[in-house]
């Protein structure tokens, strides 16, 4: 099975059995491909005594902790074929993930993203407001997660404008002009959850008090990056939605979950507030104690699988996030597949020992 066979399938159309057999077939092939093409991956599989012939379900395929991509250079193509190296955003001093993409994998990421996002925005591109600053994508040689997210979503934009300047100040005039020009059209807004709250929403509130208002009721906002910083400000999802609607009429808001290690296969939030797995990828929740699969409703560590990665062995990964499956094939929004929510990051270990810990080990 090639990726071309998969990409033609409607993203939320397969029920449990059909999706399982599709994923099993494709992920087994990817596993073989990487065992043949990535020396390190081969050694890892040998060390855990893995035999691909014994795989009955895609759930039997080992998962690599995402942190491995920070520690090792893992690729299944030669360096000449690498067209792009994606890196995760990390705080200063921390190691970053390095994800090597060849032309094919990179293209498939884009195609997948279009298929998934179009399910929520409708087909066709539209004027786009990026709620971030232009400098974040200036350095094209090394993509950060923020930059990658922006570039990824930029393909849905016809005319694009950055809402913030490089000092993270709202460009009030630019925004006004843009909205006047495209009045009456559907507009795509994209940004990172915390940035939107901190540098966009709060500024809109201030402007409203000063008598300046914006009407974004024709907008669709897609945001990602997690809630961690907003939880510390005690802002819930419901409040985020209610307050944005109040300040600028924005009603269509979709969170998404995704990671640089599996770009393309993002998990979009539906109208019911649930994150959805498309046919191109899946989430499996694992118990920490034995890595067995959790029941529906039981929180655990999130494993993600993706049908895309051919240039690096990242088709089955163990994240450091905790999540819970809410249901399969029966979300009231009508989309098939698993739907779930994220509970947050796993807690750092508190480990005793004689050596003082100065920084995280990795």
């Amino acid at each position, binding site marked *: 099975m090639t990726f071309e066979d998969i990409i033609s399938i409607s993203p939320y159309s397969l029920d449990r059995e059909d999706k399982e057999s599709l994923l099993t077939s494709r992920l087994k092939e990817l596993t073989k491909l990487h065992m043949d093409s990535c020396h390190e991956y081969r050694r890892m599989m040998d060390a855990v005594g893995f035999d691909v012939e014994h795989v009955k379900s895609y759930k039997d395929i080992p998962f690599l902790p995402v942190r491995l991509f920070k*520690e090792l250079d893992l690729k299944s193509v030669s360096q000449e074929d690498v067209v792009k190296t994606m890196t995760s955003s990390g705080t200063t001093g921390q190691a970053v993930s390095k994800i090597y993409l060849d032309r094919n994998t990179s293209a498939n990421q884009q195609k997948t993203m279009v298929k998934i996002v179009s399910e929520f925005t409708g087909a066709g591109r539209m004027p786009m407001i990026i709620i971030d600053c232009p400098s974040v994508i200036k350095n094209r040689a090394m993509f950060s997660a923020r930059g990658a997210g922006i570039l990824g979503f930029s393909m849905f934009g016809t005319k694009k404008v950055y809402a913030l300047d490089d000092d993270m100040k709202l460009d009030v005039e630019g925004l006004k002009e843009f909205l006047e020009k495209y009045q009456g059209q559907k507009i795509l807004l994209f940004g990172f959850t915390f940035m939107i709250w901190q540098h966009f929403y709060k500024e809109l509130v201030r402007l409203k008090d000063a008598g300046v208002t914006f009407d974004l009721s024709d907008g669709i906002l897609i945001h990602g990056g997690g809630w961690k910083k907003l939880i510390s400000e005690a802002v819930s999802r419901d409040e985020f939605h209610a307050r944005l609607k109040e300040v600028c009429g924005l009603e269509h808001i979709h969170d998404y979950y995704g990671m640089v290690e599996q770009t393309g296969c993002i998990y979009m939030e539906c109208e019911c507030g649930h994150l959805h797995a498309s046919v191109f990828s899946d989430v499996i929740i694992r118990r*920490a104690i034995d*890595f067995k699969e959790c029941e529906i409703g039981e929180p655990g*560590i999130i494993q993600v699988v993706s049908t895309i990665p051919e240039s690096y062995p990242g088709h089955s990964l163990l994240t450091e996030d905790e999540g819970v499956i809410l249901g399969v094939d029966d979300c009231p929004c009508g989309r098939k597949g698993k739907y779930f929510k994220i509970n947050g990051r796993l807690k750092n270990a508190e480990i005793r020992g*004689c050596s*003082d810990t100065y920084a995280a080990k990795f």
Partner: protein
Amino acid sequence: MQLNSKVLDKVTFLTGSADDVMNLPEIRALSPFDDNVMVFLNDVSRELMGNKEVKAYPDVVTFAFWIRKGSLLKLKERFKDKDQMRLGKGIAFHIAPSNVPVNFAYSLAAGLILGNANVVRVPSRDFAQVKMITDAFNKALEQHESLKSYLLCVRYERDSEINDLFCAISDMRIVWGGDQTISELRKSPLPPRSGEITFADRYSLAVIDSDSYMTIEDKARVAEDFYNDTFLTDQNACTSPRIVVWTGKQINEAKKIFWSEEHKLVEKKYTFQPIQAVNKLTQVYIASTAMNGVKVENHEDNLIVRISVSEINENLMDYRDNSGYFYEYDCKDIMELISLCNDKRCQTIGYIGDRNMFVPLILSGVKGIDRVVPVGKTMDFDLIWDGYNLPAMLTRTVAMV
């Protein structure tokens, strides 16, 4: 000597005060095993043993036991130098490790027993054990006013100015906490005649003779001992075995029983954190790319992860991990351990079997191996520790001819 007392405003005193620090340069050294000190420590021990809260903290109980009179007399018997006149060095400045609650107390007690005045930086984390012990010090000091300046327990955030001050008056600097802490402290100069004891990053191993193990009746007891060597400190103390080396003829049978007994205990006692499962899996994969012949043993859960290696590679210990992550090696000849032990980082061998098997290994001139102790005893503190003879290093010998 002029000390800048302003610097001490940043210091919290759990015992003693800033005034005591200012007076330190004038303080007199004591003889090792000074009678008053022995009585004082015994009083501290009694104070701790009488505290109901302490019972919940086996590490505090063990310390209380170590400083009771009978135990101190045994130490005196072993270490008191009857032929030569010795005195404490003077002032000992101790930096305790930040994530072992009771270590500071052993370091302090050793310094005190050997005749020194002590400034001890306790962990900045608010361990209940630190409070219990310093409370007991304060209580006992009420009856031992004269010793007040000899034990100053201080707490401060990492601060070079404060380090500078204490180092400037130290006759001996004792640094726990590993390589990074040592290099941090080395930025603060010591007076010319002062010395230093450094407890650097170390690793340890266990060597189990399968035939001896099979003859032991109480295998649950062995599991308990091994638990205390490893899981009790998240297998992350310098003394915790990171690899189990098996010798003898019944390796397979012994392994089976040993690990199943250990698993039962860990399941019952150990507080498992989800991220540990991810950490151990990550390390397994990293190790498998770095070394040949790495094989993960089947495990039903993530409490104990065992990785058998077909050869002892000199880099093996660069891939060590903690919280129940064990390399295993089937050994035919003890000299196969040379590359593991000829490393300054190699500290303790915990053994089951005949300790004499290590003699040729040690005498081969390896740079490591400072302690050879039975499984279950790797954490037992002693005045010979980490290759250092503390009674020799914390005292001064007066030649009188």
